[in-house]
Each structure stands twice: as structure tokens, then as C-alpha cells.
């Protein structure tokens, strides 16, 4: 079945006009089969834009504090040929770390709520990315490509598995602002357009054109008349499933006008749930809103939901002062912990994978020990997985004594992607799409599944 679907899509990509419109049908009625039994049916991908400092959050480095002010030398991309960076010095964290939960994983006081969830989390302290620029690293974390436009991980998952709800897109991105690299972050690129991320912007009209512009009884009559004309047209062209698919797409769209607002209507959520996410009643923005919306989307069968914290500005890029991490951490900490707890209590964490990541870490050093900020650091940073198929309460990988380089079990972005696909039941080397003379993969020619984080 998988093979059939592949060849079908391949013929589509090759430009044939055979049944191109059927993709929506296929997504709707007959979700594709994974390569092997998946642990996770859906993903919530939490992306912190700007570069979260690992040594101030998830990766305690007592020696960094001890050696504060000590000069170090290295060939680092962010200091190369940079005036004022002829000399660099180790710089301690301003936050204290404590062990949490049964597993005793140490987390800094920046994330007091997420710290309570460490027993559900597989923390990776050895992530590594190929680029120290926001644009490239953000593109890489989303597409596996650090320069060229390629399909997003959400598009790959949608392409591989389809969706379970015809009334909603299979890949939804909740982002208040445009991220680095723009809409390439959720683009399907050469994959069929049905797999592109649908952008939801927190606020009054979260999805474009979702609010009816015509009173409902009138719109119903318009749709009925349209369907009558289209059926007559179809009757003269029997067997054209594309025409039929389009006819049905209007019914779906009509349904979406109801379903989408319903997803974002939290009035039936309890006060306790609101409190769990740190959300005020009636609030339609903020990361708490994004997190609760994510739960409601995956409940409705959306395959891949990405939440972007902030965008390409006003984000975690704390060059000027690490204290800027404080309000940003406060903004996401309780909602994310709330989401994990909510998913767990509803049993959803059993088949939902939650991913927390950022494009890179921040330098454990700076050009003076007193410089209040930190620079981009792609050599080592932290991310975590939680939920379906993930070994809970684990710490995987290790950085050196100062958090500068990965010391053990390096996890490159490609390995991270391979692991996510693996948890979704897909072999990253077999999830391919033939385009322009070769088979493309999310992981290019790289990637190893990180078995150490698997349950």
C-alpha cells in the first residue's frame, strides 16, 4: 500500500495530470501506512526562536562557574575575524540548577514548571547544528537543509502519514510572528502543496479566509447552487475524480468554517485547564493559547502541530543581556509544562510526541567575563523529547566541562530528525521523494536514530 502511494505521488511529482487533486482525498479518507508500527501518531513541535542558552537552562556546568573569567582559545564561527573578539573568556551562568523529579535531572530556575516534568522528558544535552546563523540554523532545524529551500519536517510527516481529519490541514503552524527564513520554515517545497503548513496567527482570524463573508443561509444557498452546477458538469465528464474532489473541497471548506473556530474556542475548557496553561479566560494570544490550541488540534487528528515562540525579533537571541531570557522563559515555561501535564492526564501523551527545540545554544563565553550577553553557539545545545515512544526521565549526551563542545553522544540535527521520524514509524532513509533527478530525504544523506532516547 505504501508502495502504491509512493508511486502515485511520484507520478504526480513528475508532472502528470493523473489524479493530482486526489491528494486531498487520500489525505482525508485513507491515511497512509507507516513503515513499521509507530509509537507516536502525532507531533507537537515547540520551537523557541533565537537560540536558547543551554548552559543557563538544561545543561548545568559547575566548572563554568568555577572557571569564570578564564581566557579560552578556539576557532569559533561567531568570533572569527570579529573585531573586539580577539580574546574570549568563560562566563558563568546567573541561575542556579537543582535536581528534579525521580530521575533527578538538573534544570535551572529559569524553567521551574518544566522542571516538574523531567520524569516525562528525554533530555538531549548534545545537540549539534551545522550553522551559527539564525536563518540557516532555523532552516536546518526545520528542513534538514542549511541553505536551500526544502520541505519542512511537518510536510514530510504529513506526506508520509497523511491526516486523520479531512476538515483540518495535516500540518498546522501556530506562530504570532514570522520566523527566520520566513515561510520556508513550513513550506512543502517540492512535496505536493497539500502538505504545506497552514499558518495560524493567534488573534481574531487565526486562519486566512476562515470567517464567512456571507450570512450562513445565503452561503449555504450559494454552495448548493454551485454543487448543482458542478454535478451537472461532472455528469458530462464521468469518472473525473479531480472534478469530484474539487466539488467536495467546498463541502470541506464549509465545514472548516465551523470546525476551525471551534478548535480555537476555549469556552468549554475548564477553569482548571485554563489555570494549567496559565491562561486567562478569553485570552486569544500568548504561548499558553498556542499550547492549548495545539492540544485541541491534535485531539482532532492534525498530524503535525508546530508552535513557534515569538519570531525573528524580540526572541531568545540574548546578545545584549542574558536577563532577557527571564521574561521569555516565564512566557513559555508554565504553558509547556501545562501542555505536558494536560496531555498526560488525558492519555494523549501515550501516542503524542512532544519536541522542544531551538536553532542553537549560546556561547558559554564572551569577549569579556562581564559581558552580560551570550553569542550564537551551534556546537552544542539542548533539546528534549517527551511522550510516545520516548524513554522518560533520561538525559542523553553530554557536553564538555564548560558546555562548549559535545563530549559524548553527539546528536546532529539530522539525527534528531531521524529519531522523530522513527518515533512516527518511518525510516528516514526510506521516506523519500523523487525530484529533479534524485530521491530527496529530510535527512539528506545523513542521520542516525538516537536509540538512547527511545523507550
Amino acid at each position, binding site marked *: 500500500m505504501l508502495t502504491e502511494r509512493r508511486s502515485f505521488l511520484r507520478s504526480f511529482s513528475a508532472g502528470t495530470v493523473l489524479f493530482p487533486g486526489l491528494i486531498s482525498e487520500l489525505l482525508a479518507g485513507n491515511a497512509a501506512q507507516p513503515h513499521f508500527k509507530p509509537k507516536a501518531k502525532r507531533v507537537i513541535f515547540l520551537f523557541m526562536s533565537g537560540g536558547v542558552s543551554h548552559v543557563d537552562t538544561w545543561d548545568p556546568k559547575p566548572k563554568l562557574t568555577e572557571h569564570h573569567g578564564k581566557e579560552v582559545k578556539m576557532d569559533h564561527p561567531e568570533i572569527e575575524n570579529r573585531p573586539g573578539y580577539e580574546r574570549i573568556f568563560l562566563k558563568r551562568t546567573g541561575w542556579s540548577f537543582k535536581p528534579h523529579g525521580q530521575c533527578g535531572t538538573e534544570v535551572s530556575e529559569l524553567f521551574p514548571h518544566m522542571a516538574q516534568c523531567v520524569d516525562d522528558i528525554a533530555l538531549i544535552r548534545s545537540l549539534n547544528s551545522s550553522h551559527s*546563523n539564525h536563518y540557516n540554523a532555523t532552516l536546518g532545524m526545520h528542513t534538514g537543509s542549511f541553505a536551500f529551500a526544502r520541505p519542512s519536517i511537518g510536510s514530510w510527516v504529513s506526506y508520509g502519514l497523511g491526516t486523520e481529519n479531512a476538515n483540518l490541514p495535516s500540518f498546522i503552524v501556530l506562530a504570532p510572528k514570522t520566523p527566520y527564513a520566513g515561510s520556508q520554515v513550513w513550506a512543502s517545497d517540492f512535496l505536493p502543496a497539500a502538505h504545506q503548513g497552514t499558518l495560524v496567527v493567534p488573534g481574531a482570524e487565526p486562519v486566512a479566509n476562515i470567517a464567512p463573508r456571507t450570512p450562513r443561509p445565503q452561503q449555504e444557498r450559494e454552495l448548493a447552487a454551485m454543487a*448543482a452546477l458542478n454535478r451537472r458538469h461532472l455528469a458530462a465528464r464521468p469518472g473525473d475524480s479531480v472534478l469530484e474532489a474539487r466539488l467536495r473541497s467546498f463541502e470541506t*471548506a464549509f465545514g472548516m468554517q465551523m470546525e476551525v473556530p471551534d478548535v480555537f474556542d476555549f469556552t468549554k475548557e475548564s477553569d482548571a485547564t485554563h489555570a494549567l496553561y496559565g491562561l486567562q479566560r478569553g485570552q486569544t494570544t500568548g504561548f499558553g493559547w498556542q499550547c492549548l490550541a495545539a492540544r485541541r488540534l491534535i485531539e482532532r487528528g492534525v498530524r503535525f502541530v508546530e508552535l513557534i515562540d515569538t519570531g525573528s525579533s524580540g526572541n531568545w537571541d540574548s546578545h545584549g543581556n542574558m536577563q532577557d531570557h527571564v521574561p521569555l522563559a516565564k512566557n513559555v515555561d508554565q504553558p509547556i509544562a501545562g501542555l505536558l501535564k494536560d496531555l498526560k492526564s488525558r492519555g494523549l501523551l501515550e501516542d503524542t510526541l512532544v519536541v522542544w527545540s531551538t536553532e542553537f545554544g549560546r556561547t558559554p563565553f564572551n569577549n569579556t567575563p562581564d559581558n552580560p550577553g551570550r553569542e550564537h553557539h551551534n556546537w552544542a545545545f539542548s533539546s528534549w523529547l517527551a511522550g510516545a515512544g520516548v524513554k522518560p526521565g533520561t538525559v542523553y549526551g553530554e557536553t564538555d566541562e564548560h558546555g562548549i563542545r559535545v563530549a559524548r553522544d553527539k546528536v546532529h540535527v539530522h539525527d534528531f530528525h531521524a529519531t522523530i521520524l522513527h518515533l512516527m514509524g518511518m525510516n528516514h532513509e526510506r521516506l523519500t521523494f523523487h525530484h529533479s533527478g534524485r530521491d530527496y530525504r529530510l535527512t539528506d544523506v545523513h542521520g542516525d536514530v538516537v536509540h538512547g532516547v527511545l523507550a
Partner: protein
Amino acid sequence: MRGEISLSHSGVIKLNCELMKRRIAFFSLAAGAAAFDAPHWAFQSLKNQALPMVAGVENEVDRFFQSGLAAQGRSAGSAADKPTLLRRASYNLTGLPPSPEDMAAFLSDYSPDAFPKAIDRMLASPAYGEKWGRLWLDVVRYADTAGETADYPMPHAWRYRNWVIKAFNEDLPADEFIRWQIAGDLLVAAGPPERAPDKVIATGFLGIARRFGFNIEQDIHLTYEDAIDTMGKTFLGLSIGCARCHDHKHDPISARDYYGLYGILQSTRLPFTGCEKTQRPRDMVPVDLPEQAAARSQWKAELDGASVKLTESAAAIAALAPEFATSVPNLIAEGVLAPGAAQSWPPGGNTGLMVLNAGEMLQLSVLPRSSFGADGTGVEWTISENGGGKRQWSVAAAFAQPAQPLAGWYILDLEKEPRECAQFNVVFENKAGLSAWHGAELWPSLLVNHTEATVAYQTLSLPPKAVGLHPGPRGGVAVAWESQISGEVTVRVKVSEYDPGGDGIDWKLERRPSIRAVLEKQRALAPAHLAALKSKSEIAAREPQAALALAVAEATPVNAKLQIKGEPKDPGEEVPRKLPEVLGGTVIPAGAGSGRRELADWLTRGAARDLTARVLANRIWLGHFGEGIVSTPNDFGTKGAPPSDPALLDWLAGCLIADNWSLKAMHRRLLRTAAWQRASQRESGGDHRTAFFPRRRLTAEELRDTLLLLSGNLDRTPGASHPFPPENTWGFTQHGPFKAVYDHQKRSVYLMVQRIQRHPFLALFDAGDPNASTPVRGQSTVPTQALYFLNDPFVHTQAKAMAARLVKFAPEDRARMDLAARELYGRAATDEEQTVMRDFLAAISQNVPSLTEPERTVELWASWLRVLFGTNELLYVD
């Protein structure tokens, strides 16, 4: 990630690195050659094709087609009816539906050449280039922004876009079309001169290459890859870009081939688009456009006209010169003022007494020394009547108001004969409290600061309540006062240099007989002169600037070094600039320049010509039949699909060359076939020889243009540049990248296309990817498209505008429906449609609020037209 490098016996670098060895086999040239013993079909020369003999079939393409179908044991479907045929041809050739008039004319033309005539008419329409130019722009991944981290605008890219459209419309032979895009700048010398700008602009194909990173010069190797990859796919149907990091896995393209082409690009100056690191663009190429030459000569004529008027008005004033002869100034006092110094007159001890006659004038002049710059000079001057009324006159009082000075005071330009100065706008330079006068030229000769604070103007710093004179380059400027009394006065003068720089000034106090009468005559002539002066200066200010093209130029020729694993920091051996080995492998001769000219010739006249022709013929076929004879139009390599009918492909490629590469001839050839004129159906099979015409969806552009056409809002004038912010304001970063949607009502090919932000509408309906070559558009059907039809303001606006038009031009609903069907579908309305329409209008009439006529009918019809806009008959081409 350490890589081991070893040289194989054939001299080709073999790589072996831990991470990649499991998955990538690196071919040595020897191994590669073994794998390609018999040349892959695409690399073989075109063969003369014997036309299949099919009884009763005359058309050559049909003979191939029919024999192919016959071989499959199938027979062709029936022919499409005339209305279907014209609508199909119209969309395929112009991207727009036929007008009801064109349809009527076609239906009533029973001559055998009715359809060929219709095709010729469409091919002659500018809309043809707008449709087929867009298809080409898809292939060359056209965009208006650079795509690096902050997506800097490329404000001159549109000239390339418009040239592509023009080249299609003019049926520029396709070999020239290709040659110019690679090396047009090098072909200028071959003439004719009027082609020169287009040839330069055509190299925008290379100019629009994607840029990468924070510093596009540092990541230029990626831009070269983008350009090489796009060239390979566009012209040869080959993925050459794969060879950046290693020899191609499947096709006989080696890393040496890649870096041979890389050197050609390295020897070419790409325009610098601007990026985060260096924000200002540079190296755009000025072009002398014919229309600009016209604009320039028109401007020159205007300027000359204004000069004549100015000369005339100046002559009228100069004619008064003899009248000044009777008033010779007599010197009272003079001095030299060092920069920043001040002098008072009379000096200590002297009383400054003088006896004046009524009508006699005193004149205080400030004169330039060797330089006139920084000569701003403050003047304080009082004249006190010693007897009688003890009246007092002063410069300060005369200029106390920002209006003209008090009666009896004059400001004189002394360049030639005295000329009275004119006031600029009362508020000078938008500085409140600053007024100014000018003489023969438009710079201030006298400035007054009416405020209590120091005011700065250029190098001049004017103290509170000060009056300052500034001489011109060729003469002084003076304040003059005409005595109203006869008797003794006391005169006090102080001059102060306000500009610290400069070489100081000379000053003079003189008396002279009155020149009031001649100044009054002069004053009458002043408005005309001033108008002439302003007019000339305004015209001079709008001198047409040379047009700039996002084009390339030759740079110093260099050979590239192999980059190990595509990493520029890890260079290997030098590779000569050369063309790919599989088709000749010619090395660019020494002294030949970058090699672009050789590349262009090789593609269109040399060893690659036959492949180029096959790839292009296949694209035209694809544009009309929905699927190529090679169904992977950007991949003619071993991993691409083989041609479903190699003989037909070769025959068409041969025709293309024989027709002097005329694309219009190819359109005619294909559209006149019975194969293309068959009724539509959707058929599976994966073979171009479908028995029917494959039904297709309108493209994004066709849909938007059609809705604009139906509403009457389509602006058919060609688009030009986009309203990007001025270059000197650019400071885009990845934190605040360039991001805009510029809307207009012109054809969609003229919409601004951004690389890191997709245009929301174009992305929704599968428009070409501006980041990579798009050989075939997707035709997705997703609910978000239906939402667009239901709720997008654009659809509602066009429905309402069309409704207003129908209500205005057709008297009642039946006629309106008929007109709508003719415009939307190219046919009359059916009785069933009339019934559905009537029932619909009756039913929704209660939903539409009570409005006055005709607004109410327009609302009802807008609702009905939204129904029609959503029909498959509109969105699909049969």
C-alpha cells in the same frame, strides 16, 4: 568529518569520508565511463526520423501519435467542439479566456483555416508573451528578491522578466533567446545596436541567481551552485548541481565538469544585490534603452526651451543696464574682513556724520574674495536723523518681519548691474523664522533669522535676530537705503563674518544717486524672469537616469579549484574552465574571457545543441499536452523518465532547429494536430499518447487574471518596476527581513515575487517556486482553495464589479445569465442554468438586505456570480 583524498589513476579525485561512504559511491571517471558504454539516449545526436505512415492521417505529429496509439491497440478519442477548442487555445496561448466577440467570430467562420487564423491572432497578442513568459520564469526560478537571510529586493530584476515576455512576443529565435541569457553582454558587438540593451538585460538569467547567507560574498559558492544547477536543468535537463560535492551518482557529470562551469561563473561579475553584511547594492549594468533615448531627447528639448525663455527674460532685464549709468557710486568707507572677524564703521573717534539729499541712496556691499564660499556676513546698520524728527532707519527694523523689507530698502545682486533680489518662500528651507532672498541664481543672497535662537543653514550659523548677506561667485550683494530726507544723518555700520571657514570678505559703504526708478522697471520684469529660472531648474532636476539592469559582466578570468565535499575552505586541484565532458568537454581557450560565450555557443550550436533542442521542444509540448514526451522535463538523465516516443521527440527537436528555432512555429505545429484538438478526458496511463486532451486546472495566474478580466478590472498595460523602498533606506536583517505584498490589477506575471515569503495567493494555487526551477506546476485541490473562493475579499470584489457590469449592460436576468456564461465559459447559458439562476435569486432575495435599485440587484448578482466563480467549468480547461 575528516575526508581522505586520493588521486585515482585517471586523475579524478576520489573521496572517502566516514560519514558518507556508506551511502554515496564515488565514481572515478573510469568506472563512470564503464557504466555509460552506450551513450544515454539524451546525449546522442538527433537522428533523422522517418515519418510513420498512417492511412488517412496527414499531419506529421498525428502520424507519430496515431502509430503510437495503434501500437498500444488504442484508438484516438473524438474531436472537441469549436467552443471548447477556442477556449482551450486561448488559455494555452494567452492565459485568458476568449472574448464573446472572438468566440462569435470563430464560430461563424466556416473556412478551413478558421482555427489557424485564431491561433495566429492569439500568438500575435501581447498576452501570449505574458502567458509563455511566465512558464519560462518558472523554469528559471524568477524572483524579485535575492533570498539571502534578509531577502533583499532586486529592484531591477523586472527588466529581465519583461524582456522574457517581449522575447516570446517577438518570437526571438530560441537559440538566440538562450545565448543571450548566458552571454548577451558578449554578443552586443555583433550588432545590431538597437538589440544591445536587450542582450545585456537577458543576462538577468544569471543576475537573478539566488543569494545565500548573511554575507552573500562569503556564500557565493552556493549562488554559483544555484546558477549551475538552474542552467543544467533549464537548458540541458541535467542535475549538474549534484556534482558540487561528488561526481554525479547516476549521470556522467563529474565534479570536474561542475568546477569547470564554476570557473566560468567565477570569471563573471554578478551584480551585488545587497545583504545584511553589506546593505547597498552595486554593479548593476546601465543600459541605454530606446524609449529612454526618446525620453532623454524630450527632456533635452524641454530644457533647451526653458533656457531660451530664461535668456529672453534675462535679456529684457539686461536691457535696462544703461539706465544705471547715471548713478555712479561714491565710496565712503571700505574694509577687509578676516574669516570670523567683525568690523565697525566709523572707527573710534569718527562721528559718521553725513549730509544727504532726499532720493540719494546709501549702499552697503559684501564682496567675495578669491572664493565665495563661507562668506556669510552679518550686517548691522543704523541711520539716525540728526535734526527734525530725529527719525531712525535700520536694517534690523527693515527686516523685522519675514515679509518684504520696509519701503526704501533694497537688496541688490551686484554681479552685473544692480538687480533686486527676490524672496524665496516666506519660510525658507522649512525652518520657521528663517526668510531668504536670492539674486540671479537660486541660492540665498540675504538670510534673516527672525527667532531668538541661533539658526544654522549649511556652513552658516545665524545669531538671533540677525540679517546676513552672502555674495555670489561672481559678484557681491548689497543692502541699499534711499534717503527720504535732506539733511544730516549719523551712520553706524557693523559687519561680522558668520562663517568660520573661507577666505574672508571685502565690504564697502557707498552713496549714489537714486536708482529707484530703474529698479521699479526691473521689478515689473522680475516675475517672468523668476518663473523662467524656476522652470529651468525644475527641468534640470529631472534629468532621466540611465536604466539599470540586474545583469552580469566579464570579470578577470580564473580557474576554479575543486572543493572537497563542496566546501570552499577545503580546496583541491585547479580545474580548467570547461564544458561538461559527456558532450565534448571543450576547455575554454586562453584569452577567451570567462567562457560564457563558448558555453552559450556550445548549448545552441555546439555539441549540446541537440539536447538543448530536445529539452525545449519537450517544454513546449508539455505546455500544451499537460505532460512531456519526457515526463521529467528537468531530468533527461538516466534517472529521469525515458521519452515515451523518442522518434517524435527527435522529430520535433529537428523541426525546432529547422524552423530557425521559432517557438511560434512550434505552437502552430502542435495546436494544428488532431491529437491536441481531441475532446478532453482524464485518463491514466503515464504516456503522452493519451487518446484525449488532458483536462487541466487554471494556473494561479490564469485564475486571478480571469477574475480580473470578468470584473472589468484587469489592467492590460504591462507591469514595470515594483514600489520597493529606496535603496538608501535598506537595512533589512534576518530579524527584520524585507517583506511586502504589492498588489495591482495588472496580469499576475507582473506581481512581485519574493523568495523567503511566498505570495499567499500564488502559493495557495501552486505557482512556481521562486527558489528552484519549476518544470511543471502542481494542480492541487485543497479545501483552503475553496475557502479562498468562499471568503477572500478579492473574489467578492470581482464578483461585485462583474455584477455591476452585467446589471448595467443587460436589461434583465436572462440576458445577464447569457452574457455571464459567454464570458465565463465561452458559450450561451443553458435552460437548466437559467432555471437554477432564477430559483437562486428568488431564494436569496430574502437574505439580501433591502437596498435601493440597482444596488440590490447588484448584490443578488454578486452572490450568483460567486456561485459561477466556484464552478469547475470555469476553473478547468476542457
